[in-house]
Each structure stands twice: as C-alpha cells, then as structure tokens.
C-alpha cells in the first residue's frame, strides 16, 4: 500500500510539472487558463496525500473554483477569449468603452 501511494504521489507530481509547463507554453490565454484550473485540481489531491484535508478543501474551492472564474471573467470583460496571447492591438470594443 505504501508503495502504491508513493507511485501515485510521483505520478501526481509529474503531472503537476507537465501542467505548469503547458500553462507556460500554451499560445492562447484561454487554453492556459483551463490547464491552470486542472493544475489546481491536481494540487488539491496532493494536499490530501500530504495529510492536510483542510488545505485540500480550500484549494478545491478556491484554486479550481473562484480563481478560475475570476480569470475567465477578466478574459470575457476584455473580449480576449478566442484571441492569441500575442494579439497586438484589438479594435476598440463596444463593451469596454461603455463602461468608462
């Protein structure tokens, strides 16, 4: 059992690194955001293996829930959901101008 948990832990840590690298390398911001949410979810399982269930609850609610929603809302507010990271200067958007 100990061996099995150690293998699971190493697999989770590896996927954590893969998720972090994918977040850094993905061209679209929306893609990076979705991978980042998966990253938080893996992290919350890892907290459980580190015998800290309160951290797992908090990370699952905060990192995977609220943080992702805030990033998503920002992207939607800036009309950048389906745009590349290197998008230079978008047209002046209606929604953004309205709010000024």
């Amino acid at each position, binding site marked *: 059992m100990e061996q099995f948990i150690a293998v699971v832990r190493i697999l989770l840590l590896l996927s954590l690194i893969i998720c*972090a690298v994918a977040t850094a390398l993905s061209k679209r911001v929306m893609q990076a955001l979705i991978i980042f949410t998966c990253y938080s979810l893996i992290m919350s399982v890892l907290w459980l293996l580190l015998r800290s269930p309160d951290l797992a609850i908090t990370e699952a609610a905060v990192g995977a829930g609220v943080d992702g929603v805030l990033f998503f809302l920002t992207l939607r507010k800036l009309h950048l959901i389906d745009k590349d990271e290197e998008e230079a200067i*978008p047209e002046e958007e209606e929604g953004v101008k309205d709010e000024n």
Partner: protein
Amino acid sequence: MNLLHNYEELVAMILFAIGFTMLVFSRNLIKKIMGLNIMDTGVFLFLASMGYVAGKETPIVPPTGQVEAGDYINLIPSGLVLTGIVVSVSVSALMLALTVQLYKRYHTLNLDEIYLKAYGGEK
C-alpha cells in the same frame, strides 16, 4: 542521493522556477499573473511537505485520553498555508482588476506596448 529522496521539495522548487520564468518572460499580463499563482503554489507545496512525516496521521486528536505528539504530522505549516491560499486569491483578484484598468486605458495587454504608449507620447 538526497536530491531524489527530497523529490517533493524538488518539485516545489521546479514549480517555483517555472512560475518565475513565466513571470519574467511572458509579455501578456494575464499569463504573468498565472505565473505568480504557480509560484505561490510552489511555495505552499514546499511548506506543506516540510511538515509531512511518513505514516503519521492528520492532526485531529481524539476527544478524550492521552495524546501522543508522535502520532501526528506537524500542523504548523498547514496552518500557515491555509491562510496563504485564501490570500493568494485576493492578490490575484487585485492584480486582475489593475489589468482591466490598464487595458481600458491602453487597449492592450502587452507590457512593451503599454510602455511605448505611456512614455512614447502616443495615446
């Protein structure tokens, strides 16, 4: 070798380095904020793995009877990280709000363009 024995701390350090690289290299402000969040989680993972001891239990003691400290993991790092996770959300919310304001003013998220528009006389 100690490096492979401390694999959890090693991953935490690698995550911190990835987050720092993202923070430094990415031109996009939102990607920068994600990098800062990854740095945060790296630090949290490091702290929590310092408190973990193999084969010991969550620090929730029985209501009665003698309590042996040797049966439970170290609880101080998890107390520190618990508050840190919630604060990291408020930090990223504040930074996102600042990003929205920057975008409203300069219509771009690229830091170089913002610099040019702010100091190059362009508006």
